[in-house]
């Protein structure tokens, strides 16, 4: 009798258990579907936009499109000054933002004493990441263009975008450094290494995949920025390239291109979309396609580098 009872309750319990499991699995499935849907909203929107842009713009994508200057005739217009401008501006941005951002991040994590000043700086850095880009444009107009006398040049634009992405790079650097186990530092110090030796040989190599991700996110944001670049005076029609070092008569200096007037891809695109002639919309689509492709290329490079660097991390 006793045995029977326990058998019944056992089978009942088994039934309840099964029901609980089925219910839990249903929730599991529900969440998977929800997750995929959320993912698809983003991915599909992008895919549709990209496909639309590609179908409109691809007929325009030929060699001439990359080697021609802007023109009032849609069929002759190209993106030469725009893509060269974008690449040069991004170069200045990278050269300025990466060393500054990484150094600032390392200092805040490894060297800075934990006191209220550091706290204030930390809060400000995080807040700066959310400041609208136009504010950076206005700051740069006063500071770089007029105060420092850099003019409406590639240098001003690159430094403006560097300021814009500096908080992103700093925050990413700090996150990456924080993910390194404390024991790595302790081991290094125990061997008698100085802070700089620890940073150089352990902290930076181990955190570089994370730092790189931050840098690329920042650069991807910078490449599409229009507002601050327009504020500091990027041009719309420019049918010549910055001077190449040591070329021309008289030969241009090594850094003359930094002070050249310029335009960038998003501005060229925007100008074409606001034209009355429908043919310019095709140009805009083609330019958009190239811009997205440039961003993807940059991201691809980052993923590859991250993969390479991760392989070297052993802890």
């Amino acid at each position, binding site marked *: 009798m006793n045995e029977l009872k326990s058998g019944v309750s056992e089978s009942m319990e088994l039934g309840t258990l099964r029901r609980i499991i089925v219910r839990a699995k249903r929730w599991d499935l529900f969440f998977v579907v929800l997750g995929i849907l959320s993912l698809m909203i983003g991915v599909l929107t992008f895919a549709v936009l990209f496909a639309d842009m590609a179908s409109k713009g691809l007929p325009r994508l030929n060699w001439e499109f990359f080697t021609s200057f802007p023109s009032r005739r849609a069929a002759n217009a190209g993106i030469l000054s725009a893509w060269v401008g974008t690449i040069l501006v991004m170069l200045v941005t990278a050269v300025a933002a990466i060393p500054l951002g990484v150094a600032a991040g390392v200092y805040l994590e490894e060297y800075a004493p934990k006191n209220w000043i550091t706290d204030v700086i930390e809060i400000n850095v995080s807040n700066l990441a959310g400041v609208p880009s136009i504010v950076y444009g206005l700051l740069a107009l006063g500071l770089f263009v007029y105060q420092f006398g850099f003019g409406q040049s590639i240098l001003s634009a690159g430094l403006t975008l560097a300021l814009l992405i500096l908080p992103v790079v700093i925050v990413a650097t700090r996150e990456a450094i924080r993910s390194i186990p404390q024991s790595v530092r302790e081991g290094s110090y125990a061997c008698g290494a100085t802070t700089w030796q620890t940073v150089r040989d352990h902290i930076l190599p181990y955190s570089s995949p994370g730092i790189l991700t931050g840098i690329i996110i920042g650069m991807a944001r910078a490449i599409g920025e229009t507002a601050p670049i327009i504020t500091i005076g990027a041009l*719309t*029609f420019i049918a*010549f390239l910055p*001077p190449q070092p040591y070329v021309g008569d008289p030969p241009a200096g090594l*850094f003359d291109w930094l002070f050249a007037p310029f335009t960038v891809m998003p501005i060229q695109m925007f100008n074409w979309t606001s034209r009355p002639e429908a043919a310019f919309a095709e140009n805009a689509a083609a330019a958009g396609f190239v811009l997205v492709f440039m961003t993807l290329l940059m991201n691809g490079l980052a993923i590859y580098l991250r993969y390479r660097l991760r392989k070297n991390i052993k802890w």
Partner: protein
Amino acid sequence: MRKLKLVVPAVLALSSAFTASVAFADTLVKIDGSSTVYPITEAVAEEFQLAKKNAIKVTVGISGTGGGFKKLCRGEVDIANASRPILAKEMEACKAAGIKYIELPVAYDAMTVVINLKNKFIKQLTVAELKKMWEPAAQGTVTKWNQVNPAWPDQPIKLFGPGADSGTFDYFTEAIVGKAKSSRGDFTASEDDNVLVQGVSRDVGALGYFGMAYYIENKDKLKAVPIAMAEGKPAVLPSFETVENGTYQPLSRPIFIYVSAKALEKPEVKGFVEFYLKNAAKLVKEVKYVPLPAKAYTIAQQHLTNKKLGTVFGGESEVGLKIEDLLKREAKD
């Protein structure tokens, strides 16, 4: 030694900075300003560079008429594109900086009032009817077509127009409502005229206004409305002819370039402006603006040679100007 490595490139960069700015200054014609004038100046710049075999470089930016004047009066650009005459405040800024300028009308801009293709009841509009729709008092109250004219159906009006920063908005409000920037606020505003084209073409009850070039390129999607100065006066459709002979009023206006007198001493700037006036008639038409009468360009050329400084407007914009009268006026700076 290590420190030196850092210092050397910095010094190099700075020293080349100064040589660079000098090197650019003497081969460059810098232009900035209105987006309305931009297509014309861009076309001229393109042809000019071609004609000079790229020996002279021209850059054109878009920072709005106000932005262009600011840069002109700071001496940052040689020429300002302007869709309206210079204002008193801007004249003062120029005076304070010691910058003198020559005002040259280069083309007409005709604002076109457009409606949906399916709209059959609007045959023409008077200025008074447009005012009834657009004046600030209409906000929230005039929402149906029959409120403007009882003969029209009981259908909602959907209004489209340029944003408040635009020179087109300034001129339209001044010409229609009587005071610049005085407009109802509850309409769909966009700085991108293609958005306005889309809006009007999708809504049967829509009415909008923008530059004639956008109408010409979208004739298959929209209908232009003939405008009458008053009830009983003839209604005129905007076209190259009606704008040029001055019958399309009050929605057509001359647009300008302002050339800095100091920059004009540079041969490349002088060459560019002369090229501009010589080729304007052809290029203006090509970018779907209305050229001035041939005589006007000749007179403008004379003003250039005689260095007729200043503005003929005295710091205020005006409505319903004839270009001949304009060029006869005495300029003040």
